[in-house]
């Protein structure tokens, strides 16, 4: 089915029949097609009334959308899981940005007070080099909160594009893309990233790119499924009947209507991006010491678990609270959207 690629002026008769079969309102389709055609030709449509009517309908739809969005925000603010998650997440975001100017130095070493238990001077004790565990715990939020959101954003961007193209065009393009995705998913993500990072070297940018690439297949599957659910709807047909380009239909018609599943997928991926980034740091493929990164700290300090457990348990607690917070946000969003 390739007819939607045609960009000729008049609506395609086959497509019109298809629209009628799907129960689209034929008058509305004619109206939109006419309006689009005349807009393209740069003249006013013959029937000014009809155009006004259409504009009014558009305005009503926009108002309805706004109302729905307000309702969603209100529902989210009332969801306890969402709010608890959001508060914890915002706390870590705040600490990632400002902690270095609020706490003691997280790099200052003090050989005299190595592995000291929590005290008034060092709330959460000190590590093997006499550094303040509390300051390092707060500063450790930074690396993971830089890597995970950026990697998620990349995965959402690429995944949305691939999912839109595969789901909208279907056919051979879809088959090739989905086969490629199967191959990428044939290996566990941690193992593929170890393979990539051991060959291309470490560094924040490479970690972000790797996680972004490896999360793309899953996002594109979700987006593709959502696009397939939308592509036969009336408004997509109407846009195609107007003779809009495929890229316009995908980006301006379908995309706004599948934002909810994309947002939920985004928060799920964000949680896993934190998980993956921390795991890679723990395995030794992330940043190098003296970075206060949580995964790295747990890996380097775990030998002191028996004599100075605070060096390990506090960063572990921090990491756990962040992933659980993101999970709570996902849960709240999913519940609110599905209502």
């Amino acid at each position, binding site marked *: 089915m390739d007819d939607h690629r045609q960009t000729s002026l008049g609506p395609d008769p086959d497509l019109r029949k298809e629209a009628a079969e799907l129960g689209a309102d034929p008058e509305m389709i004619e109206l939109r097609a006419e309006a689009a055609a005349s807009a393209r030709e740069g003249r006013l449509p013959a029937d000014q009334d009809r155009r006004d009517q259409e504009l009014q309908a558009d305005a009503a739809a926009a108002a309805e959308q706004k109302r729905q969005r307000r309702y969603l925000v209100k529902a989210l603010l009332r969801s306890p899981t969402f709010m608890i998650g959001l508060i914890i997440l915002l706390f870590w975001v705040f600490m990632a940005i400002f902690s270095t100017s609020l706490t003691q130095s997280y790099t200052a070493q003090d050989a005299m007070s190595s592995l000291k238990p929590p005290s008034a001077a060092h709330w959460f004790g000190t590590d093997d080099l006499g550094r303040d565990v509390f300051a390092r715990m707060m500063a450790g939020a930074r690396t993971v909160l830089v890597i995970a959101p950026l990697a998620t954003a990349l995965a959402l961007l690429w995944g949305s594009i691939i999912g839109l193209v595969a789901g909208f065009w279907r056919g051979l393009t879809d088959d090739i893309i989905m086969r490629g995705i199967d191959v990428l998913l044939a290996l566990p993500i941690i193992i593929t990233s170890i393979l990539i990072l051991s*060959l291309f070297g470490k560094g924040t940018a490479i970690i972000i790119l790797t996680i972004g690439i490896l999360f793309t297949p899953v996002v594109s599957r979700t987006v593709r499924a959502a696009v397939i659910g939308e592509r036969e709807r009336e408004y997509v047909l109407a846009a195609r009947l107007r003779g809009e380009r495929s890229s316009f239909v995908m980006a301006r018609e379908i995309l706004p209507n599948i934002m909810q599943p994309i947002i939920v997928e985004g928060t799920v991926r964000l949680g896993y991006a934190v998980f993956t980034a921390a795991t890679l740091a723990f395995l030794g493929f992330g940043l190098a010491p003296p970075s206060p990164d949580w995964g790295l700290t747990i890996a380097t300090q775990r030998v002191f678990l028996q004599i100075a457990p605070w060096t390990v348990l506090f960063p572990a607690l921090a990491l756990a609270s962040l992933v659980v917070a993101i999970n709570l946000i996902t849960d709240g969003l999913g519940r609110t959207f599905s209502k």
Partner: protein
Amino acid sequence: MLRLIGRRLLLMIPTLILVSILIFALAEVFVPGSVGRSILGPYVTEEQVQLLNERLGADRPIVVRYLSWAGGFVTGDWGDSALLKVPVRPLVMEAFWHSLLLAGFALVLIVPASIALGVFAGLRRDSVLDRTITVSSLSMTVIPEFVSGVVLLYVFAVWLKWLPVTALPPDGSPFYTRLYYLILPAIPLMFLELGYIARMARVGTVQVLSMPYIRTAVLKGLPRSRVVFGHVLRNAMVPTVTVIGSQVGWLLGGLVVVEKLFNYPGIGRLMVEAALAHDIPLLEASVLLVAVVYMIANLIADIVVALLNPRIRMGG
């Protein structure tokens, strides 16, 4: 049924070839410099590098090298470790059996625990208990296994001293002692899977409970336990088994982390060591083996699903 298995096995071959090309390409094409240079380091002459390249066959065209590598893998010649100068296969296989024991033990714990939790939550749908089970088991799933691992190590090995700190018993210990040492490493792996499998079991239970035949079973006076064990459990198993198969990848990834945390000599730790030391033959062989195991695990999950669901079995 046999046709289903045969077809799936045939489908595995092209995917496996593509995966092996991917691994080989990543390992050999994108690495800057030649194989010989990466082994000998920067302080030898170009001639010596050439000599080693010739001896290793690294000067041959890329396609020939891929075919000889892939052929070697199939026939059991997996090459020599670049770092340890010993054949790769015994090294990888020994680590593999260690991992299999740990993963198998973890699966034995995961499946009944998560199904019980999921069915329990599903039977009391939307209650406080249901919400608690769902949210806490999902939270367990998203917490990285090394985080839950260190906390468990601290609580059970350091503080309460109920379980050993190490994962490997002294040499010559009987089998049950080995399992006793594996309890602590297996629990983080269990947490990793718990949320998903419990969620699927819950969804399966909720769906089955809404079926007319359950109402029939209840109305004809079957005791609740018979309804749950005879009808609900069997049918809730189908989505559960499916998701267990799809979670094997996470389990393999989890092994990498848990083995490093507990210093357990499995294939995950071997892979990390090979990757950090740039031991390409060792890395390639272990990753490819994991890919094969992963696909076989998915196949087994499909077969079990088919066995549980007669409609797929007949249609296949």
